[in-house]
């Protein structure tokens, strides 16, 4: 199997002499540049995953700051903290940030880091496109945020309804930034989706059948499929709006006879699958965390997988539940009301499966586990208020009130964010080699849990009392004062808990090394060292079970209880902390493993996109420059072999390749086939012989 097969159409063919050393004569190919520069050119899925995570957390701080300002304004009736114009910008940017720049990239980061490790691959299917996705996401986010300095941020809400988003009602550039910024991040998501789907389907280690993939991989895969089909729909909506705003088209101009519902349909056909894009991978995370800390296999694995797939399908048939009050007609309302009630069924299946896993398990309440159980409980509350929305007559009372705000925060914060924090505490030792402090982490969890419920719990009440969302003030005497004050206090508790987390992260560098498998994990990522080597595994695993790593460590006695095996083998050289208790290291020579080399082109192409966008708003010269960068970058990427032919002489291609390579005469061949060096890799039992080509 080609482990990191990537063959853009123009790349050199097998065995040909590689001549393109300095693409366009400008750059020398980055090779083993140490330090920060290696991060700019890296194509390693693990580094890219870390960058996604770090960037998303920075945006999380920004989005949180916006939320605090909103809450400060609403702490008391007739708030004077913010001008209503600014208030509109803040809630728009808050929602847009949290959805598109925090949860989506955070989950993309997990998927990037974990999928190859969990399926026993050396990298994703297209490592350079992977880097490209990250840079496009980053630049798209920065582009969107630059609007604050260029005349004001978008102010029409995260769903940006027409005709309010038209030039007539929103003459500034804010909405333009929104439209173009989301188009840019959409490219990142689409490329990422293709990349990760191909990775899941094509790069699995021998024996890793689809139904042996960890649930996280499955849920991430379903989410990528949703992205694949949802992104083009919002892209259409964004293009139409952009043509309206920039070139005078009429799609949402009511005077010309346009139908504003067109926007609503397009947005929510994207928007509802999008909420599953935000939650399914988080479900996947806790489905891997809960079994580990219950010391039991996941209850009903196939049900978990198929309910996820079912949600993925049904998620396409419920979008108009966001439009019950838009006048779509009684038949539509009835049909979408029913379909929305039905979608709660597979969701409920998951909740029962988690409870079934916890049931009679040997539970250990680590911070990761606390957040996972937090998801199960808090998401359930959000799911229930969702079912209340699905009753259309009920929804006409709730829609556009704080009740809806309470609902989606229970599913997005109590669901997705809790899942993300669970994953952060769980995989931190894998990614960085040491744990986050459990003690500080518990403070973090309980503060966040209390703050979260204090902030969003009361919103149910004021929402049912009719307090409208997206309104900058409310008068006194409505009976909302106390609840709003509590909500504001809660939001500052959440902020405090975030600072506790940051402190935990900063301090954690002093923590002792955690070893390869600190939680006695079940899936393959725990079978390699922490952090894993660039090439992930010294030995390519051959998989015989679901929860393969567990089965390598444990046997069963007659009564079905797990008994630790006397000996089992890690998949990479590990440190001393991990050995003992039967663990051994594989004895293999990894020197002939070649990975794709770092490349400048992803970042160059990605940088072109915001330039094109600025150009559309200000001067076409910028667009031309951006266009040249994109086209030049694509050609450069196409001509450059994915493994630098020179790199084989001194390292493994990856920027931080470990130690001198064998000095092979690398040819274009290696650009395509990078795998376990034949003879040596194959010494491991059952390793797929010759999975990589020899040099």
């Amino acid at each position, binding site marked *: 199997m080609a482990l990191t097969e990537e063959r853009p159409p123009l790349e050199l063919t097998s065995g040909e002499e590689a001549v393109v050393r300095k693409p366009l004569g400008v750059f020398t190919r980055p090779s083993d540049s140490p330090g920060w520069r290696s991060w700019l050119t890296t194509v390693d899925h693990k580094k890219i995953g870390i960058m996604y995570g770090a960037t998303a957390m920075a945006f999380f701080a920004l989005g949180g700051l916006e939320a605090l300002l909103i809450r400060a304004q609403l702490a008391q009736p007739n708030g004077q903290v913010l001008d209503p114009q600014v208030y509109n910008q803040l809630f728009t940017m808050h929602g847009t940030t949290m959805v598109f720049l925090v949860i989506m990239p955070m989950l993309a980061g997990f998927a990037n880091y974990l999928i190859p490790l969990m399926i026993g691959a050396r990298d994703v299917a297209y490592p350079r496109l992977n880097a490209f996705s990250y840079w496009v996401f980053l630049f798209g986010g920065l582009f969107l945020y630059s609007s604050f300095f260029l005349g004001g941020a978008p102010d029409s809400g995260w769903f940006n309804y027409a005709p309010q988003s038209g030039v007539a009602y929103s003459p500034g550039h804010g909405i333009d930034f929104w439209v173009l910024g989301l188009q840019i991040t959409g490219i990142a998501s689409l490329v990422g989706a293709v990349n990760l*789907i191909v990775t899941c389907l094509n790069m699995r280690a021998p024996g890793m*059948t689809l*139904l042996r993939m960890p649930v996280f991989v499955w849920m991430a895969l379903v989410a990528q499929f949703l992205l694949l089909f949802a992104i083009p729909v919002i892209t259409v909506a964004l293009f139409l709006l952009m043509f309206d705003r920039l070139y005078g088209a*009429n799609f949402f101009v009511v005077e010309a*006879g346009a139908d504003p519902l067109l926007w609503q349909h397009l947005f929510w056909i994207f928007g509802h699958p999008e909420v599953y894009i935000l939650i399914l991978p988080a479900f996947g995370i806790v489905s891997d965390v809960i079994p580990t800390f219950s010391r039991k296999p996941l209850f009903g694995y196939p049900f978990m997988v198929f309910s996820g797939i079912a949600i993925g399908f049904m998620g396409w048939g419920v979008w108009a539940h966001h439009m019950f009050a838009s006048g779509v007609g009684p038949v539509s309302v009835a049909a979408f009301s029913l379909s929305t009630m039905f979608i709660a069924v597979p969701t409920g299946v998951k909740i029962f499966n988690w409870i079934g896993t916890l049931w009679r398990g040997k539970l250990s309440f680590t911070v990761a586990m606390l957040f996972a159980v937090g998801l199960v409980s808090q998401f359930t509350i959000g799911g229930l208020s969702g079912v209340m929305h699905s009753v259309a007559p009920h929804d006409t009372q709730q829609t556009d009130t704080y009740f809806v705000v309470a609902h989606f925060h229970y599913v997005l914060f109590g669901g997705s964010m809790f899942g993300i924090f669970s994953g952060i505490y769980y995989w931190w030792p894998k990614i960085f080699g040491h744990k986050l402090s459990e003690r500080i982490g518990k403070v973090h969890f309980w503060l966040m849990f209390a703050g979260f419920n204090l902030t969003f719990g009361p919103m149910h009440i004021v929402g049912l009392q009719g307090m409208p969302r997206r309104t900058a003030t409310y008068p006194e005497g409505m009976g909302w004062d106390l609840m709003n004050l509590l909500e504001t206090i809660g939001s500052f508790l959440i902020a405090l808990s975030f600072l506790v987390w940051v402190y935990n992260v900063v301090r954690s560098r002093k923590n002792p090394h955690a070893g390869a498998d600190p939680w006695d994990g079940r899936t393959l990522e725990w079978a390699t060292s922490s952090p894993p080597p660039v090439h992930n595994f010294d030995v390519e695993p051959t998989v015989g079970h679901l929860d393969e790593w567990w089965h390598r460590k444990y046997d069963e006695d007659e009564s079905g209880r797990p008994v630790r095996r006397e000996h089992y083998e890690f998949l990479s050289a590990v440190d001393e902390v991990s050995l003992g208790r039967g663990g051994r290291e594989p004895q293999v020579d990894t020197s002939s493993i070649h990975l794709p080399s770092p490349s400048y082109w992803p970042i160059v192409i990605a940088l072109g996109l915001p330039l094109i966008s600025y150009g559309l708003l200000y001067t076409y010269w910028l667009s031309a420059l951006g266009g040249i960068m994109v086209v030049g970058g694509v050609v450069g990427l196409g001509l450059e072999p994915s493994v630098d032919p020179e790199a084989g002489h001194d390292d493994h291609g990856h920027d931080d390749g470990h130690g001198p390579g064998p000095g092979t005469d690398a040819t274009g061949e290696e650009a395509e086939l990078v795998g376990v060096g034949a003879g040596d890799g194959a010494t491991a039992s*059952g390793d797929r*012989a*010759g999975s990589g080509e020899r040099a």
Partner: protein
Amino acid sequence: MSVSEQTAPPEVVADRADHVPHDAAAPAHHTSTGLSNEKLGMWLFLGSECLLFGGLISAFLLYRSKDVEGMVGPAVGDLYDIPFTSVSSFVLLMSSLTMVLSLSAIQRADHRRARTWLLTTAMLGATFIAGQVYEFTSFVREGLGYTTNLQSSAFYTLTGFHGVHVTIGILMLVSLFVMSLRGRLPAERSETVEIVGLYWHFVDIIWIIIFTLVYLIPA
């Protein structure tokens, strides 16, 4: 797929693995599904494109059937030159044939012929684009600009998006042609041609749908 894979005992998998060809010249196709990453990626991308065109076509159909009181300018439907567009549609359709011929030629390592057909495909595509440019200009001359009314915005956007897709396809075909001239497209890499072909046929099929829904079926 998953079910049968699930039931396959691990020995079988290991066995299959032993048959991985060991010679360096073997194509890099040993993936879990047997499809190469590039081809699978292209299929996925085209799946995504279906929804892009689905959205655009829906927007057009919605606005064409809408009765706008006091609509400015002509209706698109009144300006169609069906015989002309039929001919250009036929040209595009034929380009799919030449694309197939080019693929089969390169698979037989008949590079001269492959190049000829590649170039023919690109030329047919360019003819189609020229027809579209002519159509657009004649519509504009008759008073239907991009911003004239709802229908015109939707029409130009939809057909324009398709035109851009064809143009990108032409660029890819020309790149293949140049690669082939420089000897970078040996028969073992015929899959590259196949993948570009997938894209080309897709764009062609989309046009058939657009032609039927937009031009032939009256509002």
